[in-house]
């Protein structure tokens, strides 16, 4: 019963005793350069994989995303518009800044769990959970002052004279004063909304 554990422990002791001593046969030059090369390869591989999981193709490869939220995105202005500039999933849903991105990726391990256990693997289950899931995104954007919106929509470049009167007034009154952030008014612009009963600003 204890044998596999003993074996493993023995191996760990061997690695530790060897790793703990200075290298006997390898030159310091080899170790430095080798370490550097290995580091580059590890880092490159890590970032490549990270960026691979940061693409729309990766997101919609799960039918939960492809059949629900992605279909809803398609008719909206963030997918189809006159200039052809568009936002893909990670543009809005993953922070662009590296540390924040890693934090969000760590959070996303919960989503892998959900995928494995089929938390939202049918349309009905998805709709039942939609208010909670949307709430997470609203909270995240509220907390970071709509950072993912502002990656493209900067207030300094926003020419309110080119906007309609009501948009200009609303932005001057609430956005530029910092009283509200983008997500406070612009909920459900890229996806359909959950039941909005009790959500501030909705009737």
């Amino acid at each position, binding site marked *: 019963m204890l044998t596999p554990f003993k074996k493993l422990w023995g191996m760990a002791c061997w690695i530790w005793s060897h790793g703990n001593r200075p290298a006997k046969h390898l030159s310091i030059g080899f170790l430095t350069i080798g370490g550097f090369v290995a580091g580059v390869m590890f880092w490159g591989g890590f970032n490549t994989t990270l960026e691979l999981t940061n693409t729309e193709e990766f997101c919609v490869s799960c039918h939960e995303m492809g059949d629900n939220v992605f279909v809803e995105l398609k008719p909206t202005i963030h997918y189809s518009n006159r200039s052809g500039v568009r936002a893909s999933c990670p543009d809005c849903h993953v922070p662009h800044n590296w540390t924040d991105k890693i934090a969000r990726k760590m959070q996303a391990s919960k989503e892998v769990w959900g995928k494995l256990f089929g938390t939202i693997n049918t349309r009905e289950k998805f709709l039942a959970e939609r208010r909670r899931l949307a709430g997470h995104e609203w909270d995240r954007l509220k907390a970071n002052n709509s950072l993912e919106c502002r990656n493209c929509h900067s207030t300094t470049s926003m020419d309110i004279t080119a906007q309609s009167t*009501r948009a200009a007034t609303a932005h001057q009154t609430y956005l530029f004063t910092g009283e509200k952030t983008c997500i406070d008014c612009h909920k459900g612009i890229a996806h359909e909304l959950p039941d909005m009963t009790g959500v501030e600003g909705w*009737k």
Partner: protein
Amino acid sequence: MRSFLISIATIIGFLALGVSAYSDGTATLRQGAPILTEPDAPKMNKVENKDVKRVRNYPEQPPTIPHKVRSYEISTNANKCLSCHARTRTGESQAPMVSVTHYMDRDNQVLATVSPRRYFCNQCHVTQVDAPPLVENEFIDVENIIKAE
């Protein structure tokens, strides 16, 4: 035999009707294009976004929408229009309040919120495009009728 003749006659009648409608220049969506050619789609006009109210043609006319409403959701879950035009939202939005008639049921009993029968805004209120009218409009404003008398 008789019913067969009647059905044949009916079919011929409908065909004749269809041909005459086509040949007398009745406006159709296909614009008289031959059946095997695909006519160009009519030009789509831009929705007016001027935020300037249009005059109502008669007092009971549902006011038109003077702004774009693309992707404004009106469903069982949410009503984007009401997030500005509902009574409690007008302070923040400075938008005109939904008319008081919408806060009544069909027996004119007042309600706290918009009546379910008035919930689907775009059943009556529509956006406008700056396009030439498709058919001639013979509508005369009642004021002009009174003046003419």
